């Protein structure tokens, strides 16, 4: 896979002495959607800000589409679009004026047709002459995206894109991100919404306390670290788990009505067949059976807890 963003040994220590990033090395593949997950203060935004030129790295090198972000900053930044976490907009400007400014700043000549297309794609066309201060939070978020896309970047950073956005807009945004990816744009997003990463990402990176603790294909990660549970709804409640079933490590819940069995999906033997045979021999009958797989959120929480 070709790396479109290459991060090598990047560290950041602020003047206060706080170390936000510790020797981060990471490659983002061309055309992928990469989700960077991490708790508050993990270093996600610092990393993005360094790549985009807003914060200076203390050590290390970064290249964007083959261009060093310091020595060849013009070419590197030209490729990058950033939607920051905060809704920082020129409140007194119109949507059209602020998006036009962004395009110019990134070295593109005027192209009203392109800006019109972006505004229409983001359902902002009707608001093009409105001052940003009159827009809702969701609309302002769209304006931020329009600004980031105005110069036709090939790498797009979305820093917490769904913060403060309603469900409908979030779904629209996911659609837009997929469509951008289909057009060859590489997308790197940070998010607190694990659902977002689960829904969209090709690969997931987990960052905690300034260190990358895991980078993995999302599906592989879920397969590798995912646990599965079977919950049996019993026909008759039981007061305790019989000794003959003790070795299955079951959990009894629901006032004796539910037995839960956890197993590793990667294991050679899941133990399900034996469990069902033992249940039949013990005379425990069940009315229903549910299975549940660990979500990315469960995996993320486990990982962060493990490393803390």
């Amino acid at each position: 896979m070709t790396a479109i963003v290459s991060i090598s040994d990047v560290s950041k220590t602020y003047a206060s002495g706080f170390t936000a990033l510790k020797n981060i090395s990471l490659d983002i593949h061309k055309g992928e959607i990469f989700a960077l997950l991490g708790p508050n203060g993990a270093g996600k935004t610092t990393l993005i800000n360094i790549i985009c030129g807003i914060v200076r790295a203390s050590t290390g090198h970064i290249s964007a589409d083959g261009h060093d972000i310091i020595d060849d900053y013009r070419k590197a930044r030209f490729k990058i679009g950033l939607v920051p976490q905060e809704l920082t907009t020129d409140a007194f400007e119109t949507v059209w004026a602020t998006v036009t400014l962004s395009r110019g700043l990134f070295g593109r000549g005027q192209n009203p047709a392109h800006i019109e297309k972006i505004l229409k794609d983001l359902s902002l066309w009707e608001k093009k002459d409105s001052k940003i201060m009159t827009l809702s939070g969701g609309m302002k978020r769209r304006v931020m995206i329009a600004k980031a896309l105005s110069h036709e970047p090939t790498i797009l950073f979305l820093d917490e894109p769904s913060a403060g956005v309603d469900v409908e807009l979030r779904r629209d945004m996911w659609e837009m991100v997929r469509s951008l990816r289909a057009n060859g744009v590489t997308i790197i997003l940070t998010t607190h919404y694990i659902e977002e990463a689960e829904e969209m990402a090709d690969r997931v990176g987990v960052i905690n306390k300034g260190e990358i603790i895991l980078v993995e294909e999302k599906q592989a990660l879920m397969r590798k670290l995912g646990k599965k549970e079977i919950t049996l709804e019993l026909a008759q409640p039981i007061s305790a788990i019989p000794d003959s079933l003790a070795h299955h490590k079951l959990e009894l819940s629901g006032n004796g009505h539910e037995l839960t069995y956890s197993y590793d999906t990667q294991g050679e033997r899941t133990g399900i067949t034996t469990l069902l045979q033992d249940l039949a021999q013990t005379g425990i009958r069940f009315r229903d059976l549910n299975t549940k797989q660990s979500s990315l959120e469960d995996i993320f929480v486990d990982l962060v807890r493990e490393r803390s």
Partner: protein
Amino acid sequence: MNIHAIRAIYKFEMARTFRTILQSVVSPVVSTSLYFVVFGGAIGSRIAEIDGVTYGAYIVPGLIMLSLLTQSIMNASFGIYFPKFIGTIYEILSAPISSLEIVIGYVGAAATKSIMLGLITLGTAALFVPLHIEHPLWMLGFLALTAVTFSLFGFIIGIWAKSFEQLQVIPMLIVTPLAFLGGSFYSIDMLPPLWRTISLANPVVYLVSGFRWSFFGKSDVAIEISLAITLLFLVACLGIVAWIFKTGYRLKN
């Protein structure tokens, strides 16, 4: 050079001027007119000619310079401080634009605005007093040089300031007093010898004197010295701006 970026910043800043036309243009013109009414008309009619020039006409260069200094500083400092304050500075910092291009965009727009105001003030003055400009090209040159220099100074203040209060401190407490005491309304030759000597430490004296020379061909200090001091201040401001971008002072962590 990222010409598109310079143009974008320049147009964006100029658009703000025209959107806030009352604050940007009308207000300074009204206040300058009031100076003419009070100093030029009411008080000036009782003051004898200075260097063969009526008092009303004599104060015109000083008034224009006063307006030019304060407007250059205010426009440029606000222009760069406001994106810092609301957070949109992220876009400037992440754009493929050099520090020189940022300065040309912001300082160019601020200087354009203050030159426009200077010329409007001059036009307003012409309604009150008869004016003859002896060296019009030098007058325009001084106008542009002072506007650019003090817009750079304002740009530095805008980056340095952490609050709107700090943004006002230097223009209000340093520049305005220096402008008033820098011979805007009088010739420093009218002062007692000690105060005349002290006044020579005031850089505004050289600006006003040089500018006044372009109007009347007479000055408090030699035109060459006025020009040299102004250029020296310009170079100092350029040096500070270059240092700011090199170190990221109050712009980048």
